[in-house]
């Protein structure tokens, strides 16, 4: 390599970069990871706020929003979107659709895959940066543009998208159809924002996969990779292969909206405002659903797998034991990745598929629970016989296990198409997936944040604030989502904007079975709403902790404060440009804790083997 080749790379480390090159347009994976992380946390907070407003309408239907919630909106906005201060159905739907979209596409995926992945992966495989640093920066800015489009759509005359985060045609085709210039319609901007977000994820996936395949340090064979890296590898493949069909669906729906094509418009469609639609017809709304869920299902594994990755890193460090069942876990996660592509129509059991194909999807869906259970069980067994340090990251990681367990188990009834006939589109589904994502995935991410914060900043989080964040969060998460499972089984539908008050049986002696059932369980609504609002309050200690500890947190004593074994702890703190100050290699597995043949409590991956000791394991020459 010539010196000029190095100069091709803009980040010349011989002189200090200006602020905007160092923090805004950086190509360093660590800076980009933090950019993603901060942006994603802000979006998560925004999505949370949307849901808080929705929960008012559910708990206290017909009552205007309270002052403490509505002060953020302008009077003009409130006049347009609220009715005498009360949430209307249209506004509720808008908030609901954007809550889902923001949480999934702007919050969890960027936080898990892009933020954690970016910061940790190159460090854990022992290389200097991602394979394509400039592409990495472009990915972040595509995400930024997509996010801005989504946020900006709230301020349009049409409002933001309001047809569910799933955006099914034909409703999504025609919502905001009254806006003449479609590019100013929230639904269209949702689609354009998605195109940017998909581009960002695709470019990111290419970057991650190339890095993991081609840039591993010497001695870092596939089976010596930390589980985190395997997880990011699988997530990368899911994003790479599953997103393009959604891009196709978004493109087709965009064309339906702007040039009047009929990809998803069936013949003879009639709407109240326009009568028989003047479109050619001949299209298929089902086609949209297939294309959407072809992404949609792998997408939920994209949400989950990075969280399992974080937990799988935190647990061995704090039990001082290797991860139990590393190899089965690797095979399981590969199986989960592969199977996730062939289960998608379990979201579509009520679309009129015949028994044979429904059975296929039912079978694959039940099958995919097996590797997931293997993963969870291995993590649980990893605790057995460990010398457990219940520091704050470990609290989050251990709490992840039962929370994800509940989420996973409640998914099983939904896998069976017969049971799903009753549970589809009920609060049971909402309870199930929120259990997986909220107390599940988010707890995993908090574990990761608390675990890697010392490496990123060189300081520790405050422990008391950490506990003040954890315990109320755990309690309120359960108070919020468990009743949803109960209400769902009673038949409460999703997306009821007044919590179900319209379905209550009116008379005392009514024989309306459904109305009576709703009356039996509707009292849970205020309980859940208060749990949600208190859950929001419980995040305040985290924000305080974050801001406080970056400047005044207790400084770490050495570069490896947790006494961990994976390569990211071998760098200076915070890691400089180029990451490692020595020629790093991997000489053993990633979780060598409490080894019988080693004096110390742990044997880091990067420590060269002692010359006088016999070889630890025959180093196999990689044969490809």
């Amino acid at each position: 390599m010539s010196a000029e080749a190095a100069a091709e790379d803009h980040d010349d480390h011989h002189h200090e970069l200006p602020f905007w090159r160092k923090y805004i347009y950086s190509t360093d994976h660590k800076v980009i990871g933090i950019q993603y992380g901060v942006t994603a946390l802000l979006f998560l907070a925004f999505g949370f706020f949307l849901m808080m407003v929705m929960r008012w309408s559910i708990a206290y239907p017909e009552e205007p929003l309270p002052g403490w919630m509505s002060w953020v909106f302008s009077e003009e906005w409130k006049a347009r979107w609220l009715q005498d201060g009360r949430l209307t159905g249209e506004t509720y739907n808008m908030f609901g659709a954007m809550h889902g979209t923001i949480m999934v596409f702007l919050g969890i995926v960027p936080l898990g895959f892009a933020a954690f992945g970016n910061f940790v992966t190159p460090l854990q495989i022992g290389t200097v940066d991602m394979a394509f640093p400039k592409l990495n920066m472009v990915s972040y800015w595509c995400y930024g543009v997509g996010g801005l489009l989504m946020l900006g759509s709230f301020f349009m005359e049409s409002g933001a998208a309001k047809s569910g985060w799933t955006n099914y045609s034909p409703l999504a085709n025609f919502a905001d159809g009254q806006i003449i210039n479609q590019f100013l319609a929230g639904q269209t901007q949702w689609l354009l924002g998605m195109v940017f977000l998909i581009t960002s994820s695709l470019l990111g996936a290419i970057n991650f996969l190339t890095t993991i395949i081609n840039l591993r340090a010497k001695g870092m064979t596939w089976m010596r990779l930390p589980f985190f890296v395997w997880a990011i590898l699988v997530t990368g493949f899911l994003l790479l292969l599953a997103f393009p069909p959604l891009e196709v669906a978004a493109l087709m729906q965009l064309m339906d909206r702007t040039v009047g094509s009929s990809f998803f418009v069936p013949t003879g469609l009639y709407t109240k405002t326009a009568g028989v639609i003047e479109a050619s017809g001949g299209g298929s709304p089902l086609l949209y659903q297939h294309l959407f869920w072809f992404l949609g299902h792998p997408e939920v594994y994209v949400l989950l797998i990075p969280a399992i990755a974080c937990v799988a890193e935190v647990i061995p460090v704090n039990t001082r034991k290797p991860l139990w069942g590393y190899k089965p876990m690797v095979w399981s996660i590969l199986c989960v990745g592969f199977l996730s592509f062939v289960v998608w129509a379990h979201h579509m059991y009520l679309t009129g598929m015949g028994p044979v194909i429904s059975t296929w999807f039912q079978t694959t869906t039940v099958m995919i629970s097996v590797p997931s259970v293997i993963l969870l069980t291995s993590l649980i067994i990893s605790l057995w016989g460990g010398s457990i340090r219940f520091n704050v990251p470990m609290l989050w990681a251990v709490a992840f296990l039962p929370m994800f367990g509940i989420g996973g188990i409640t998914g099983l009834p939904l896998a069976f198409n017969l049971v799903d006939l009753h549970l589809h589109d009920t609060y049971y589904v909402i309870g199930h997936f929120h259990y997986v994502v909220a107390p599940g995935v988010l707890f995993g991410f908090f574990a990761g944040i608390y675990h890697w914060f010392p490496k990123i900043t060189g300081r520790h989080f405050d422990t008391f604030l950490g506990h003040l964040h954890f315990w109320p969060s755990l309690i309120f998460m359960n108070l919020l989502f468990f009743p949803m499972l109960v209400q769902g089984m009673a038949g409460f539908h999703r997306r009821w904007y007044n919590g179900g008050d319209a379905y209550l049986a009116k008379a005392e002696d009514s024989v309306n079975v459904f109305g009576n059932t709703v009356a039996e369980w509707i009292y849970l609504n205020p309980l859940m709403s208060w749990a949600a609002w208190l859950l929001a309050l419980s995040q305040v200690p985290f924000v305080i902790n974050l801001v406080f500890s970056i400047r005044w947190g207790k400084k770490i004593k050495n570069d490896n404060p947790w006494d961990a074994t994976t390569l990211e702890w071998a760098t200076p703190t915070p890691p400089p440009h180029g990451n490692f100050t020595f020629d790093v290699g991997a000489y053993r597995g990633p979780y060598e804790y409490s080894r019988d043949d080693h004096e110390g409590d742990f044997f880091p991956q990067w420590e060269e083997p002692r010359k006088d000791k016999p070889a630890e394991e025959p180093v196999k020459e990689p044969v490809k």
Partner: protein
Amino acid sequence: MADSPEAIQKARNKYLLVGLVLFVFTVVTYAVATQPWLDFGEHGFDAADATIGLGIATLKAGLVAAIFMHLSNEKRTVYVLIVIGISTAISLMGLTGWTFTDPIKYGDWKKGDKFYNPEKVVE
């Protein structure tokens, strides 16, 4: 990947030959589709024409991939990536197709319904 001058020269000849073959195949595809004396199966477009057309296209694609894109010289990693990509595409198309061809049918069958088969309707 070829590195030596002789190898590159041989490769160039191979590229030219493959290019020519692709041209010929294109003409064949066009002829089969438009010339009446090459009309297989039913008069006009039918499954036989589709099979031949797509078959020739697949052959051409295979040649482009193997020779122009050097796939025949690559190591395993690339094949793994391609196989993963293509099998995902096939599972998308195949399974989606299966859902359409195995519908639940409610109500009365009448002429003009897809899959209307009077012999199979149970009274």
